[in-house]
């Protein structure tokens, strides 16, 4: 696979570390309640289709990126800096 790092350009996926669903950026407030925290820490969707996920460009620039990838075809539609995604949602 190739991932288009917003900083470095197109790179082999072996430069990246895979983390999991990008919901990890939406950390609940400490008083959000047990349900919100359970959801954030434990519950993940496994769609047969598009999925926003976090990759770390560990052997590159060190950026965390949100990759929108189709889990059935591995097609990648979009790659954003996780920092930008977080800032946009704030």
């Amino acid at each position, binding site marked *: *696979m*190739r991932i288009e790092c917003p900083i470095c350009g197109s790179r*082999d996926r072996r430069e990246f*570390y895979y*983390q999991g669903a990008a919901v*990890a*950026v939406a*950390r*609940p407030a*400490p008083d959000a309640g*047990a349900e919100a*925290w359970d959801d*954030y*820490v*434990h519950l993940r969707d496994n769609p047969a289709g598009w999925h926003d996920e*976090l990759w*770390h460009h*560990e052997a590159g620039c*060190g*950026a*965390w990126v949100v990759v929108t990838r189709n889990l059935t*075809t*591995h*097609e*990648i539609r979009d790659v954003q*800096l*996780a*920092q930008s995604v*977080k*800032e946009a949602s*704030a």
Partner: protein
Amino acid sequence: MTRLPGGLIDRDRTVTFRFDGRRYLGHPGDTLASALLANNVRLVGRSFKYHRPRGVFSAGSEEPNAMVELRSGARQEPNTRATTIELFEGLTAKSQNRWPALGFDVLGVNDLFSPFFAAGFYYKTFMWPKAFWEKLYEPAIRKAAGLGSLSMEPDPDAYDKGFLHCDLLVIGGGAAGLAAALTAARTGARVILADEDFRLGGRLLAETHTLDDAPATRWLSEVEGELESLPNLRILRRTTVFGAFDHGIYGAVERVADHLPQPDTVRQTLWRITAKRAILATGATERHIPFANNDRPGIMLGGALRAYANRWAVSPAHRVAIFTSTDDGYRTARDLAAKGVQIAGVIDPRPEPRSTGDFPIFPGAVVTNTIGRLGLRHVEIRQGDQTHWLECGALGVSGGWNPNVHLMSHHRGRPVWSDAHLAFLPGAGGPAGLIPAGAANGKGTVHGALQSGAAAAEQAMADLGRDAGLPDLPQADDSPATQTALWHVPGTARAWVDFQNDVTVKDIKLAHQENMTPVEHLKRWTTLGMATDQGKTANVTALAVMSELTGKPIPETGTTIFRPPYTPVSLSVLGGGNTGPEFRPRRLTPTHTWAEARGAVFVEVGQWMRAQYFPQPGETHWRETVDREVLATRAGVGLCDVTTLGKIDVQGADAAEFINRIYCNGFKTLKTGMVRYGLMLREDGMAFDDGTCARMADDQFVVTTTTAQAGAVYRHMEFARQCLWPELDVQLISTTDAWAQLSIAGPKARMLLERVIDAHDTSNEAFPFMSCAPVTVCGGLRARLFRISFSGELAYELAVPARYGAALMARLVDLGKDLGATPYGTEALGVLRIEKGHAAGNELNGQTTAQMLGMGRMVSAKKDSIGAVMSRRAGLVADTRVLVGLQAVDPETPVVAGAHLFETDAAQTTQSDLGWITSACHSPHLGCAIGLGYLTGGADRMGTEIIAANPLEGQSTRVRVVSPHFIDPEGGRLRD
């Protein structure tokens, strides 16, 4: 050696080789198969299951029969196809799967018992009694059925891997591939042309087609000359593109030195090719027509017969017959006749002869049987209701061509049946950017291949914004071969479909009777297409036979798709040289060479090689060494390289706030120049990693991690910085490799430190426990000093730029001679920290909480930090397991890490399990075995005796529950 005229071999030179011990001669340009045929060797192997005598069947990588053990000794390579082995001087090969000899094989009796070996026989026969499978059936089957054997020696050759990038990858160097490469390369695009053969040209080398009224070789040499001259094009000969992977990545193996007696550099290279576009110009594979006893040596594909005559100037016999359901067979007859081979006849099932020639033609006829166990002698022809025998030493069988669609289906793209082609053509759903062309796409004439290759390249270039334009291509034949569908000749005797796995039409019938009709079931029930050739010459024919049996048309019966690799790939080249010490990167500490010179024994810790202990002359056991190192440290001063612990430099205006959120314990009050122990939790509340955090300046912290988690902690902190709190002004960098860090531990540590440090007050008052400071040592070398202790002794860690690590260590040992300065390794480090009750990786295994570590109260309730919320879950809070010390009641009995803890009188069951021992060692300080462990209700069990059970070795050891701090529980020593 008998040769026909012509051919693309170098007759001026000869090459000597051996097959089954006999010496033969060939020419450069030969394959092992062509050279064997030139020496009248038709019998080359035995079949997998029935041990039937077999000969060369094809002239390429699709070969199912002619597999040999190539070379000898450690380089012996089983199951290599004689049809692809380039002949080299001194080549040795052996036939396989026969005993005692190829001509007389004892297990040939299997052939007589063939009714027992029918489809699914493994599943049916060896079910009972169950115990017999492992002991009797499987070893016997393995011995009888099988392919070549391994040398059982390490591979002596070097392998490499490499990465290539291009605009266009052209897979296949035949007419279509060459036209494509030429078209694309002339635009200046970066092009890679890969072909599995050692000579470019593909089928053009095997045919007598003319290009612009000249032999094809003239055009080939012109094109090859131009391609060689282009700096933007790279030709990879002897290179098989074996798989298509995601996002335009192709795997390829270049056989760099397989054609040499011995590799001069690497033997094979694994290429990972990243291509923006690719063209599948892989040609087509001819299919045969099953009939009774169609597996005799001498029976081969018609196109192969032609290839041997035209390219290699050999014929397997002086008199050959052709059995063909397509016009292609007449071409074979004409080409061979032109070379002086006697044509016994062309047997064509179609009622009207399709061509005339100076040879007998049998229209409306089929081959119904053959004679000649070790080599074909006669074929039986049925014409109408008449049968007669025809004498011939070889038979060419032509049943049409199957496009080599393999790579198109590597992403589960399904080939589509074409009635016009009587074949599966590439369908939708193939790898993105892969364009089929030439015979691989059903464009099988020379003209069609050239045109479609160039057009595909033009399209690929247009996709990339390049205007290619079609090159002038030579005039070439464009008459398609007409054909009729003849999938097999019905009969009662066995007719082989898959030669390599010995699957016959009967087996398919049986599978049908037993309702194994879906293609996937058919494959598994009969093992069809599951041999090393992946059924290249069998799958489509089998599907057609099944379609006949079910009465459904072929498209409804199913399709056959392929997985990588296209042809077998050796594990050696997939390893790409990453074997032995090169298996993975090895990280050496700054003092590695110094430790080696002192005779240290090393241990792998992740990627690191760390000194485990430093044996001295006269020490006979590792424990003796470790005990000495521990006692010397506790009595005087010990030195240990702790560089491998992760170091993360945290800087920025918000660094303190960031640190405070990363660790579960409070950091807001940490003053510049001080160090604090910190525990990181995962967001689920479990302990993640621990270490120290030193505030070097108001806006600078140095975080240390455990060796094992250095990478993971850095990643985690970057995640927090970028994904959780991008608003904080903070920057991180890993400095693990930048600083060599040495631990100086023991009551005389300060004395030793003072001998290297420049003008810095290290007194207890000026530099108390948990202080840190930037200092200089040895006359001006910049360094960082931390007063922290893992051993429980008065201790410092001194960091210097990594390149000075070894020099500093050597100097400390030298200057500390009179103090008894003793280097110690990871083993003594472990003993020291267990005696002190400090947690390490064993205690932080991902299943433990701060509370279990006895640090529950450390988790600050005043702030939000990672894991704080979830650590307060009721279930975790209610857990009474806590880290305790365990001391063997009988000092002679060892305590074992991993042992589980029980009440002394309890049954040892999962229900009564009280916990487990995480770390254990012999404590030279206490003179007995000790351990650390998690114990349910541990706080209330202090002083009681329990059992440490190790049921794996039948041990039950009485241990006393004590404080985990075996030495100096008040911590006086480290504050002294």
